[in-house]
């Protein structure tokens, strides 16, 4: 059954082209064949991991460790500079809360567009739009312009789309840290519900949240996987490293 991994990352690396001056980008297009106008900045070096179907994997790491870039690559938004990756099935990303939403449109209208972005046909959208509404459970607000929504309500609509888009892989970046305690508990329920049918990969700085939800945790440090495995162990190691760093920093100061 688990012959085919849900997510496969083999030696993935990403270098951003760093330009000294904004207009060098244009020069690069025009004269790129003859001269290089940028420096490479390697954000990811050599990332290797696999995620099996139905697994819930959390990613931890400090700012700039390459977490968001890794998720963007897996979603197909940006291309890796080297290495191979494969994601089996339809991906539903929640990379930034409400990023694909238009504040003037109602929740229902935005949900339709969101579902279309994920690749649903009109018939499929018609079939699941009421389920999304029920899942979001925000009552009459669903027919109101989205600019009137709270963050929690936006998150519910976003989750509802992903839950009913028949996605196989849910990729979440930080989106869950916005809500209050009640909302976070709801998120846990959403994720548990989603994990019954699909794979989840999520980035969070909320370590307790990850510890309670994930089957495995992956620690990304300086563009490579530093440690991957049991959530309690990885998170404990990660905390220790953070503390050591803090001590070191304060010791110097």
């Amino acid at each position, binding site marked *: 059954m688990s012959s085919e991994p849900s997510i496969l990352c083999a030696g993935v690396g990403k270098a951003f*082209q760093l*330009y000294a001056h*904004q*207009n060098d980008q*244009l020069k690069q297009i025009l004269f790129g064949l003859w001269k290089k106008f940028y420096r490479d900045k390697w954000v990811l070096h050599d990332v290797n991991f696999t995620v099996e179907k139905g697994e819930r994997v959390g990613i931890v790491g400090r700012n700039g460790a390459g977490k968001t870039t890794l998720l963007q690559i897996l979603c197909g938004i940006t291309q890796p500079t080297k290495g191979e990756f494969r994601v089996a099935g339809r991906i539903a*990303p929640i990379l930034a809360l409400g*990023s694909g939403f*238009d504040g003037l449109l109602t929740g229902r209208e935005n949900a339709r567009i969101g579902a279309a972005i994920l690749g649903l046909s009109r018939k499929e959208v018609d079939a699941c739009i009421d389920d999304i509404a029920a899942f979001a459970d925000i009552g009459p607000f669903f027919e109101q312009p989205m600019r009137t929504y709270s963050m929690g309500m936006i998150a519910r609509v976003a989750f509802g789309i992903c839950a009913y888009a028949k996605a196989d892989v849910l990729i979440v970046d930080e989106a869950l840290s916005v809500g209050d305690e009640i909302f976070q508990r709801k998120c846990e329920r959403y994720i548990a519900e989603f994990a019954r049918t699909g794979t989840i990969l999520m980035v969070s700085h909320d370590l307790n949240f990850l510890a309670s939800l994930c089957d495995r945790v992956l620690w990304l440090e300086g563009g490579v996987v530093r440690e991957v495995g049991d959530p309690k162990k990885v998170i404990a190691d990660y905390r220790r490293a953070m503390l050591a760093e803090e001590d070191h920093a304060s010791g110097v100061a």
Partner: protein
Amino acid sequence: MRRHLLASIPPVYVAPFERAWRNRELIRAVVRREFISRFRGSALGPLWAVISPLFMLLTYTALFSLTVPQLSAGMSVTEYASSIFIGLIAFNLFSELAYRAPMLLHEHVNFVKKSIFPSETIAWTATIRAFTYAGVAFAVYIVFRLLTAGTLPLTIVLTPLLVAPFFLFILGVVWFLMALGAFTRDVAHIMASIVPVLMFATPIFYRLDQIAAMSGSVALWLRLNIVGDYIEMLRSVALDGTVPNVFGYLALVAISYAVFIGGYQFFMRYKSVIVDVI
């Protein structure tokens, strides 16, 4: 047999259509979104799409036709206004997109960077939207013409044959400007200074044969302006009731298609880089 024929076309010539067809639900949803968010909160809503061209038409009829009789070259006042109006519909379409295209990716940065959004569809939605407005304006023209002249030339049924290649031409230009505009904001400024100049190099307030009567070589240069060629042909089918030169038309179609494919390939080539620089 037909399948076989279609399959024999090199994929590069049909790739843009295939991708658009695959994303047709998305294109439809985003076009709808643009219309809804444009008209929501305005009292008259979609009526504005009719009112603004009507207002423009009446202004030009009143102003130009009465103050610049030399340009009208023997045409009646309403005929000259119609001629200007057709020119303006096509040119406004072009200029609106030329101004907007360099900023399109910046406007949709959340879509492009934060969701799995095929960014090349933005050109489709922007162009479809602009052509819808132009279509409404053209309907206003038809009504105006029926009211003032009482009749329309039969050749007006050929209009779609001009609109289709014009659409592809504009789409190619939008892709090209969209990609360039993502790399440097100068493109938007360049367009802002070029387009007004281009307006006078386009036969909007005059006709090419008037120029040709004055100076043949200038007219030849103006022929290079593809938007102008389309305007001239639109006038001949929708106003004069004549069929344009077939070879001229086919050349125009070929050039437009080349621009369409070229723009698409340019955009797709830099698409992955654009995500990183925007």
